[in-house]
């Protein structure tokens, strides 16, 4: 694992980011690890539970600083979630940290029953989510987690788009009275323009009336670059909305985007079945809002092999791909 990961950004995308004045931040994973450590230093009831995931969760410093506040269960995700729920039932603020692929599939029944149904407010942290593991293949991808957890009552789903959203999401989840699933990757991300809105609400990063990009998680930056690119290359003014909270959705922001713009494109690092795009499409249909509409995500097929960057490019989740989807809708 010594070769640097292929860049998620084409030279043109990097140039666009530079024109927007965006600075490259860190991986959300690192912002998470720092935030949870500072929360735990301030409160000994804040615990991290890991399933041999302290290295991949960047929790080495946490374990060294606060060894009594980290509970290791070994490679046993079902036990991870059950133990976390038991700890939460005793008043602990618990972050259960494991790769999203294993956490939300192997331990799905524990999430459904022990966390959500029993109302034990665990913070489930799905690291290396989506196709972060790239060439490691489908066993390590989590393209089902939004869909699976959207079908579970009493759990919120948050996919932060940058480091600031991650910090806000971790702090929000720690204080939340209900279970929360946080989901992010491990690639460095550009810092986005700051938003005063709480993490549970939409962050409108750029306004416009042509195409609204409704994106979540680590596709948001690519949507922002696509909007800037479309304005520069075609004079189109597009709106970019970060919907970190996939569940519950910011209904007002979604409806406003569809009512005020000519077209809507959703973007997510998830299979198009059951994810953000279907949630948005259903919401619009139920409110009688018609808009030209397309979903960007991973289709229902054997996922193409390659790095995370390759997979994003292949399925049109990069600046160029999202701009092309938007342009096609306006034809």
């Amino acid at each position, binding site marked *: 694992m010594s070769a640097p990961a292929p860049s998620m950004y084409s030279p043109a995308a990097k140039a666009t980011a530079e024109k927007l004045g965006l600075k490259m931040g860190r991986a959300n994973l690192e912002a998470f690890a720092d935030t949870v450590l500072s929360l735990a230093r301030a409160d000994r009831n804040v615990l991290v539970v890991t399933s041999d995931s302290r290295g991949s969760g960047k929790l080495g410093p946490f374990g060294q600083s606060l060894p009594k506040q980290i509970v290791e269960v070994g490679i*046993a995700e079902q*036990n991870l979630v*059950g133990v976390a729920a*038991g*700890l939460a039932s*005793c008043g602990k603020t618990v972050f259960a940290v494991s790769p999203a692929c294993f956490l939300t599939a192997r331990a799905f029944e524990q999430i459904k*029953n022990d966390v959500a149904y029993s109302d034990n407010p665990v913070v489930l942290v799905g690291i290396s989510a989506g196709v972060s593991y790239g060439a490691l293949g489908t066993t390590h991808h989590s393209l089902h987690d939004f869909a699976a957890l959207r079908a579970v009552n009493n759990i919120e789903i948050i996919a932060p788009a940058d480091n600031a959203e991650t910090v806000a999401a971790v702090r929000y989840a720690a204080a939340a009275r209900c279970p929360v699933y946080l989901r992010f990757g491990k690639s460095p991300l550009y810092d986005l323009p700051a938003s005063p809105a709480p993490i549970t609400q939409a962050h409108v990063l750029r306004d416009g009336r042509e195409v609204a990009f409704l994106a979540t998680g680590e596709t948001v930056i690519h949507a922002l670059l696509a909007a800037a690119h479309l304005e520069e290359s075609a004079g189109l003014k597009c709106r970019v909305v970060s919907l970190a909270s996939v569940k519950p959705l910011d209904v007002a922001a979604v409806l406003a985007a569809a009512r005020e713009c000519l077209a809507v494109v959703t973007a997510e690092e998830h299979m198009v079945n059951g994810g953000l795009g279907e949630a948005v499409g259903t919401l619009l249909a139920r409110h009688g809002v018609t808009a030209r509409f397309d979903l960007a995500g991973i289709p229902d097929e054997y996922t193409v092999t390659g790095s995370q960057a390759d997979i994003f490019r292949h399925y049109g989740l990069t600046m160029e791909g999202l701009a092309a989807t938007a342009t096609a809708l306006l034809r």
Partner: protein
Amino acid sequence: MLSLPQLAQKSLLYRKEVLRRVRQAGAGHTGGSLSCVDILNVLYNRILRITPASRLDPARDRYIQSKGHSVEALFVVLADRGFFAATELDALGQYRSHFVGHPTRQVPGVEQNTGALGHGLPLAVGTAIAGKLDDASYRVFTLLGDGELAEGSNWEGALAGAHYKLDNLTVIIDCNTLQISGRTRDVMNHEPLAEKWSAFGWAVRNVNGHDFNELISALEQPLEPGRPSVVIARTVKGKGVSFMEDVGRWHHGVPSDDEYARAFAELDAALAELEGGAA
């Protein structure tokens, strides 16, 4: 705290109430409720430091029923202990009732929503770790079925219980040897059970799960410092009703009018015999 004769009488009354509630609801896991009711009787009337008033006290003992399908036994015992009025059980299985066919925390005294098997032990491990972190003196108990032991998550929890030296944790196995499709040894053999748990690092005690003395002795203290305890309770499915005892079809089943009358006659005769013996 109930004496041994009082416990014996209480179990007979619990058995009658379990049958009455199953019949009234028109559904229920009769056999498994009857196999574990003596265990629940001993827990709630002799062992657990929990009352309706302390049910949310952080210092309370915890009981998590992993074999959630034996909910009728749990509800009957909780009602008897005053966690809610027994008349509330009239709503068992009814529209909008929180008395559903598996335990839920909507019912006072229920610690966790169980019913899917293999969940109680990991929950109990987390609860016991919290107790250790807080230097709390509470104990954590969980009741597993023997058929349930085929769920792999139990063995993940068993590893963790020993790894963290959770001597505040006790697993009780209601070893009634029957599950829905037959003898547990034929469906998926888990014997030798004591050796397995011992190899996992647990302190093990085999008891007759219908012998109050043996149950009390195994449960009143952790078996060994520095290790979690497992009490393997050898039980009889359908215990207390002759034609239900050790008969697979009573895994779930509602007695007919005739069966109900015969069961009550047997249990009433046993009660009369107890009273006669006491007189």
